[in-house]
């Protein structure tokens, strides 16, 4: 499903957080949104997912979502957002229960997504017993279960340590290769952006405007950590953001 963000502007009271954002999100691509902290990138994601309403402008669906999608706009959150009182299995089941699927169909989906995220052996574990990486894999399995048309990923790897982040990036690439999905991926980590993004959107400091859009043609599977041309793009991005990040850091939070 293609999406289009059309002249989107947003204020919180007198503060303008996003200004005139125009962006196309084509099917089957991962769009990474990067920017200094407080630039409104997570807010932008909430507009795309319909959790908040922008002051002006809109997010348009250019086509119908696929009929088999249970939840076309599906979030993956930074802090996992798993129910601590439900097991891995129960957390995935939660998002299927309201769809009247019947138990056999639900069992089939849960088993399938847990296999795809290498969690089949941990179906009965409670979140408190899982590592951060495992928790995020559960959240990814939960998202897979509803067959999203668009993945909305809000700094999904930011709460994880560097090694786990590498592993999960490989997992995400693997999942994308198996079945290319559409995603808007918000991050402040430039290395993640160049590893996973087909298109990288750089936002400026508040009020967030699009400063630059960079397309990376290299296929995801060829992008290893430390690849020379990726490093060059990463540096270019950092160059673009450095002053803004510094200024954002000096700002008082209002």
């Amino acid at each position, binding site marked *: 499903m293609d999406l289009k963000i059309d002249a989107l502007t947003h204020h919180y009271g007198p503060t303008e957080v996003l200004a005139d954002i125009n962006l196309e999100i084509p099917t089957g691509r991962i769009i990474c949104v990067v920017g200094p902290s407080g630039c409104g990138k997570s807010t932008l994601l909430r507009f795309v*997912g319909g*959790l908040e309403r922008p002051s002006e402008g809109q997010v348009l669906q250019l086509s119908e979502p696929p009929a088999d999608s*249970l*939840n076309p*706009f*599906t*979030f993956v*959150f930074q*802090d996992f*957002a798993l*129910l*601590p*009182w*439900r097991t891995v299995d129960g957390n995935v089941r*939660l*998002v299927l*229960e*309201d769809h009247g699927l019947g138990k056999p169909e639900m069992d089939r989906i849960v088993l399938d997504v847990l296999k795809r995220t290498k969690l089949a052996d941990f179906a009965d574990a*409670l*979140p*408190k017993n899982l590592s951060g990486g495992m928790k995020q894999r559960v959240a990814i399995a*939960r998202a897979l279960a*509803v067959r999203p048309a668009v993945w*909305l990923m809000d700094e999904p790897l930011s709460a994880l340590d560097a090694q786990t982040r590498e592993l999960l990036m490989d997992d995400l690439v693997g999942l994308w290769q198996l079945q290319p999905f559409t995603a808007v991926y918000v991050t402040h980590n430039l290395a993640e952006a160049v590893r996973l993004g087909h298109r990288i959107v750089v936002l400026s400091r508040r009020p967030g405007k699009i400063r630059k859009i960079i397309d990376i043609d290299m296929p995801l599977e060829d992008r290893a950590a430390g690849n020379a041309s990726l490093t060059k793009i990463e540096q270019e991005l950092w160059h673009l953001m450095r002053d803004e990040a510094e200024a954002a850091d000096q700002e008082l939070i209002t």
Partner: protein
Amino acid sequence: MSQPVPYRGGGFRPKRIRGLGLLVFIALLLIAEWGTRAGWITNLTLPRPSDVIRTLWDLAVSGMLWTHLGPSLGRLTVGAFFGAGVGVLVGVAIGLSSMMRAAMVPLVAALFPIPKIALLPLFVIWFGIDEMSKYALIAFGTFTPTVVATYGAVDNVDRTLIKMGQSFGLSRISIIRKIVLPGAMPGILSGLRISLAIAIILLTAAEMIGAEYGIGAYILQAGALYDLERLFAGVTILSVLGVTLSFVLGRVEGRVLRWRI
């Protein structure tokens, strides 16, 4: 010079020590027994623990224990059930609806500090001298603390979990049933601990007015006759009731809140 770095950590972490609480009880009883036997505690100050235990035993053997305990447990169950039940419902409603919050929070704040015992005569006029007034008193007394604990617990449910529920298109009823209520359960249960203790206090007070049988009536009779053994026997029963309820609630917590760290 070479010596180990001085250790400054440790402490501030409650450990579970089994049996110590029981030991304190037994030690106090033994001291009282010794004192009353040796004579440095007079019989008018404190009855002999062994006499109290004998009184309890007689009470149990004669069947009078159940005659008193039965009605008391009935009143406690009915009163606390309705008070806490309605309290949880109202508390959840306040937690979920701004309208209910604006309407009910000032009212609850106004009702909370009223000593419910002072209202007993009024309740007798409203509900009669029989069981109804006792149920009402206990229900009213448990209602307010339960409401306050419940809406506080609902307020403390992790908002990101609710946002997650909304982002997956869960129905409002599913969000309440599967996210809000389990998330509020720890707070509701700890509120229930307080409510049940208050229920026992009010039970005794209610039974001191117009009850033939019941632990409160038993204590009142004993007090009127300065029969300290029976008075202490009655107090012991209340105490045991409190400990039992707290133990049961602890078990329920352990089961319902197994997911907590």
